C-alpha cells in the first residue's frame, strides 16, 4: 500500500511538498504548455474576442473536427487550451451545469458564475488524491446584462480572475507582456479593434503571419450576444485590415 507525506509521493498526488507547494498542480500547468498552442483573449468596450492557433497535425484529419472553441450555451463560449481530452470532459460538464442552472434559476448562467464553478471543480482535484488536476486552462466569455462584456480565465490550480486581456499556452508570458503594453491606458476597444488586437497579439508573439485557416476566432458582442466562431471570410477581412494598418 502506498503512503504519502514526505516519502516522495508529493510529486505523484496532490499533497504538499516541504516548501508548501503542490507539484501535481505545477505539472498540470506544464501539461497545458506541452499542448503546443497559444491562445489570447481580449475584452473591449462592448465585445470579447478569443483567438487560438488551429494546428492540424495530419493532412488526413478532418479539419472541421479540430477545434478548441466550444459553445457552452448560446451565449457563453469556452476556449480550452491544453490536453484535448481533458478539455472535452470539462466542456461536457460545463454544458450540463449551465443547462441545469438555466432550468433551476430561470435565467442564463453568467460567465463569471460558470468560471467560478469550473474553478471550484478544479480546486477539488487539487485537494483530493483520487483525481488528478485537469491539464486545461479555460477562458470563459460572455455578455452580462448588467456588467457588459466579461472574460474570465480558470486554471488547474482553481484560480479564476476577470481579465481585460489575457493569454494561455506556450507563449503565455510573452503575450501578456505584449497585451499589458496595449491595455496600459485602459483603451475602450470597438469590436473591430478588439478582434484585431487579439489576432495581432498572437501574430506578434508567435512571429508569424497567419492564414485564415490557421486560427480560430470566437466572439460575443453586446449588439449580438450569441457566442459564435468567425467564418474564414470574416477572419480574412480582419487579417487584411491588420496588414494594411501596419
Amino acid at each position, binding site marked *: 500500500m502506498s503512503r504519502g507525506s514526505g516519502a516522495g509521493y508529493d510529486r505523484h498526488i*496532490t499533497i504538499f511538498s516541504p516548501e508548501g507547494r*503542490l507539484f501535481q498542480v505545477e505539472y498540470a500547468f506544464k501539461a497545458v504548455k506541452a499542448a503546443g498552442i497559444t491562445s489570447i483573449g481580449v475584452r473591449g468596450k462592448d465585445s470579447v474576442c478569443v483567438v487560438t492557433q488551429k494546428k492540424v497535425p495530419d493532412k488526413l484529419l478532418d479539419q472541421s473536427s479540430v477545434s478548441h472553441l466550444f459553445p457552452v450555451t448560446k451565449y457563453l463560449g469556452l476556449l480550452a487550451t491544453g490536453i484535448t481530452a481533458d478539455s472535452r470532459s470539462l466542456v461536457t460538464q460545463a454544458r450540463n451545469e449551465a443547462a441545469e442552472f438555466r432550468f433551476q434559476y430561470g435565467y442564463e448562467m453568467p460567465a463569471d458564475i460558470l468560471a467560478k464553478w469550473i474553478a471550484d471543480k*478544479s480546486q477539488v482535484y487539487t485537494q483530493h488524491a483520487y483525481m488528478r488536476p485537469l491539464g486545461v486552462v479555460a477562458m470563459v466569455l460572455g455578455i452580462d446584462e448588467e456588467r457588459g462584456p466579461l472574460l474570465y480565465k480558470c486554471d488547474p490550480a482553481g484560480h479564476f*480572475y476577470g481579465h481585460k486581456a*489575457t493569454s494561455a499556452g506556450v507563449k503565455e508570458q510573452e503575450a501578456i507582456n505584449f497585451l499589458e503594453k496595449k491595455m496600459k491606458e485602459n483603451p475602450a476597444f470597438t469590436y473591430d479593434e478588439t478582434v484585431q488586437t487579439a489576432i495581432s497579439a498572437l501574430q506578434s508573439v508567435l512571429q508569424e503571419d497567419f492564414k485564415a485557416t490557421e486560427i480560430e476566432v470566437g466572439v460575443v458582442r453586446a449588439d449580438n450576444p450569441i457566442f459564435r466562431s468567425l467564418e474564414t471570410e470574416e477572419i480574412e477581412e480582419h487579417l487584411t485590415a491588420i496588414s494594411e494598418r501596419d
Partner: protein
Amino acid sequence: MGDSQYSFSLTTFSPSGKLVQIEHALTAVGSGQTSLGIKASNGVVIATEKKLPSILVDEASVQKIQHLTPNIGTVYSGMGPDFRVLVRKSRKQAEQYLRLYKEPIPVTQLVRETATVMQEFTQSGGVRPFGVSLLVAGYDDKGPQLYQVDPSGSYFSWKASAMGKNVSNAKTFLEKRYTEDMELDDAIHTAILTLKEGFEGEISSKNIEIGKIGADKIFRVLTPAEIDDYLAEVE
C-alpha cells in the same frame, strides 16, 4: 470521501511525532500575501494585500475579503481556491444554524465548525489539509471578536494578528501599536500602517482590501474611495 483506493489518511505521523503535511500547509500559508486583523473596543477590522498577477486582471472581479453572515466576515493568507471552499461550507453551516434556531450563529460557533472542517481534512482519507489560515471578524452579543484558524484546525481568539509573508514584522508592529481602548477608526489606521510596513511598491486603494464591522453589527468591505480617504489621513 474519495475513492476507496484512498481510504487511508495522507496526513500521517512522522517518527518524531510531527504531522508533516500540516507543517507544509503552514509553509504554504507563510508564502501567501500578508493579511491582518485588529479588534478594537467597538469593532473589528481585517485587511489584506491584494497583489494581482498582472495589470490585465480586472481588480474589480477579485474580492479577497468575504462575508460569511451579515455580521461575520473573513480574510485569508495562502491558497485562494482552498479559501473559496471554506467560505462556501461556512456560509452553509451558518445558514443551517439560522434555519434551525431562528437566530444568527454566534461567532465562536461558526469558527468552531469551520475549524472542524479543516481538521477533518487532516485526518480523512485521500485528501490534503487546506493551504489557508483564516482571520474571522465578527460582532455578536458577546461584542467584537477576532479569531484565527490554522490549517490544522486549531483556532484562537486574538486582539490583533497577522499572517502570510510579512507575519513577523507585522506582529511586532502590532504589538507596539495595540492598545486595549483603541477605537475602530484608530484600528483601521493602524491596520493600514501595518500593511505599509512590509509593502513592496506603492500602497493604494487598488492593491489592498479592508473590511470592518462596528457596533451596528454589519460587516462591510470598504470601497476604494473610502480606502483612499483613510490612506490620505494616514499620510
